[in-house]
């Protein structure tokens, strides 16, 4: 009986967070629609998807890491490296069919290497991924400090293939993001690995005492994050058709704040990838409204930060309430 009540309550709190995020997205979208006559249209919504697809992929990858209580701040550099390296390879004449698997593999291995160092030598995730960030950004600059255009036919085709309906366009790479989202949702919800991710984030020690493969899981989440970053890089190179060593500087903070707005706790154990996706969309809406209003782009930053602040406080309050409830319940049980 009491266990049932407990699980119901947990379910409740988790859903509130996602509900607030979704309501906020709808609210912001309505504000835009009320203020500007042309805002409310399918094409505005589709453009959010088009412009945000690479960020969605990267944010989903980082959500895995955040769920285990770690952090990965190397993703923006991995994206930049993927773009520059693939642009460089394509220019030398390597076919796209070789380039894309190769860069994805590099991202995967690089993530796994960082995960290995974090896990095996108990190094700080922040420091290791920071070093990874410097390393990748440096490699970009070693390859080329100038922007390299991509003229490959396959890339061009991917960049321009789109689905048009009702005056709106959805580019092909949105479907890649959708596929990643579905795969991530499935993994986290229905596989043994996904449940272990939550368990490790909830309490690493108890997870390890339960006999769960904590070390392997931790290495795998960093590998996933690296792979997603590389995939986001491939999508980004479709999107821009160029590779530039300084692109996406500071993007990891966008990804992390999207996850936080989407209800992921940075202490690990709580969060969903669908929430993260909505978080990315919210940032996209803010950006669109700021553009419509003809404001300077740095207003986006101020608004995002204010929103981030609001969300964190709400989360804090929710968490505080559930803690209090637990305390009271504990006292009652003791008294009984």
């Amino acid at each position, binding site marked *: 009986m009491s266990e049932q009540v407990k699980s119901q309550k947990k379910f409740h709190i988790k859903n509130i967070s996602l509900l607030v995020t979704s309501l906020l997205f709808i609210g912001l979208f309505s504000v835009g629609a009320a203020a500007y006559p042309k805002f409310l249209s399918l094409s505005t919504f589709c453009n959010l998807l088009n412009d945000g697809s690479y960020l969605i992929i990267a944010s989903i990858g980082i959500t895995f890491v955040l769920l285990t209580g770690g952090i990965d701040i190397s993703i923006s550099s991995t994206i930049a490296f993927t773009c520059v390296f693939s642009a460089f390879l394509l220019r030398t004449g390597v076919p796209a069919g070789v380039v894309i698997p190769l860069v994805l593999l590099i991202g995967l291995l690089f993530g796994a290497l960082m995960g290995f160092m974090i896990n095996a*030598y*108990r190094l700080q995730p922040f420091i290791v991924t920071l070093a990874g*960030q*410097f390393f990748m950004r*440096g490699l970009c600059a070693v390859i080329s*400090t100038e922007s390299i255009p991509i003229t490959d036919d396959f890339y061009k085709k991917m960049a321009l293939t789109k689905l048009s309906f009702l005056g709106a366009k959805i580019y092909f790479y949105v479907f890649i993001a959708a596929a990643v989202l579905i795969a991530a949702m499935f993994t986290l919800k229905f596989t043994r690995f996904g449940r272990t991710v939550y368990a490790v984030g909830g309490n690493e020690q108890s997870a390890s005492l339960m006999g769960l493969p904590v070390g392997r899981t931790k290495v795998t989440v960093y590998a996933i994050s690296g792979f997603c970053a590389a995939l986001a890089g491939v999508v980004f190179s479709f999107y821009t058709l160029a590779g530039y060593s300084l692109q996406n500087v500071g993007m990891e903070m966008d990804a992390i704040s999207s996850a936080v707005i989407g209800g992921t706790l940075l202490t690990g154990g709580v969060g969903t990838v669908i929430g993260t996706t909505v978080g990315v969309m919210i940032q996209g809406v803010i950006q669109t409204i700021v553009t419509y209003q003809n404001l300077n782009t*740095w207003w986006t930053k101020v608004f995002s*930060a204010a929103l981030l602040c609001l969300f*964190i406080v709400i989360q804090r309050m929710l968490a505080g309430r559930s803690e209090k409830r637990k305390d009271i319940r504990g006292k009652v049980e003791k008294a009984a």
Partner: protein
Amino acid sequence: MEKIKKLSKYQGFWPTVIFIAILLINGIISGGTFFDIKIVDAHLYGRLIDILRNGSKLMLLATGMTFVLATGGTDISVGSVMAISGAIACSIVDGRILPGAGQSVQAAILLAILGGVVCGAWNGFLVSKVKIQPIVATMILMVAGRGIAQLITDGKIVTVNSDAYYFINGGYILGLPFPLFIVLFAVALAILFTKKTAFGLFLESTGCNPVASHFAGINVNRVKWLVYTFCGAMAAVAGLIESAGIKGADCNNAGLFMELDAILAVAIGGTSLNGGRFSVPASLAGALIIQSITTSVYAMGVAPEITSVVKAVIVICICLFQSVEFKEKMRKRFSAHKPERMAKTA
């Protein structure tokens, strides 16, 4: 030998050794010219002086960051705070805001530092009162800070024309660059405050176990608040030096990635990012290591883009050397070989 063993127990020992080693390697590669110090107009010039002068910002940030990390927190907003303080100071010296202050440099410096204190106090408030995880709490200001700085300067790059203001970065006292004296003053203050009062003990205890410290009667929240405020003030001073160096306020690039360098400096110094033991001199050595890597890459004539690769590799190596697990693994490997060798000789 005994003395060296005793010395090596200090937290600052290995970082200092590494720093000297980097300098020596530079000296050998450059054939000694690296250590040349010239005296021109009673001012000292040379690579070593450059390292000290350019490293001053990082040393200030590392001092503030050491305390924050000692409480088990992180402050990733220092780069943005640098931009804000530079924006405030340059706007006042330029007369864009507060014309009543009469473009006075003193007022500009005071208000800029006050701005840093307010930013730090805001971080401290979020961490200690609202109880948000430090990295998230300071991320808010990191994201918003550059926007706020842009608001202050109205989105422009404000340039200043004041010799008194330039002095903050380019001035000399007794032949040594002025920023060095700022660092000395700040560090002396910080060390006195933590070593000669009980505050240092409170700080370590808060970082080791906040709950136990609370029960021991330490006001953990106040310690945290104070620490973040101090870090904000240090960042503001570093922002002043930076803006005086480029003779203007560039909100987009001032202090960009400095927060990462500052955390690295402290980590290289051996202060755990989980809180607890800390050492300001060790962090200063860490800051000097980072600065000397940057300077030596320039000095060797290698493309400056490689700096970050070199930095990354060195950081990982240093972290590995500090890792207990890594040391144990290495020891096991060596001790595994020893019995074999002994058996052979026997």
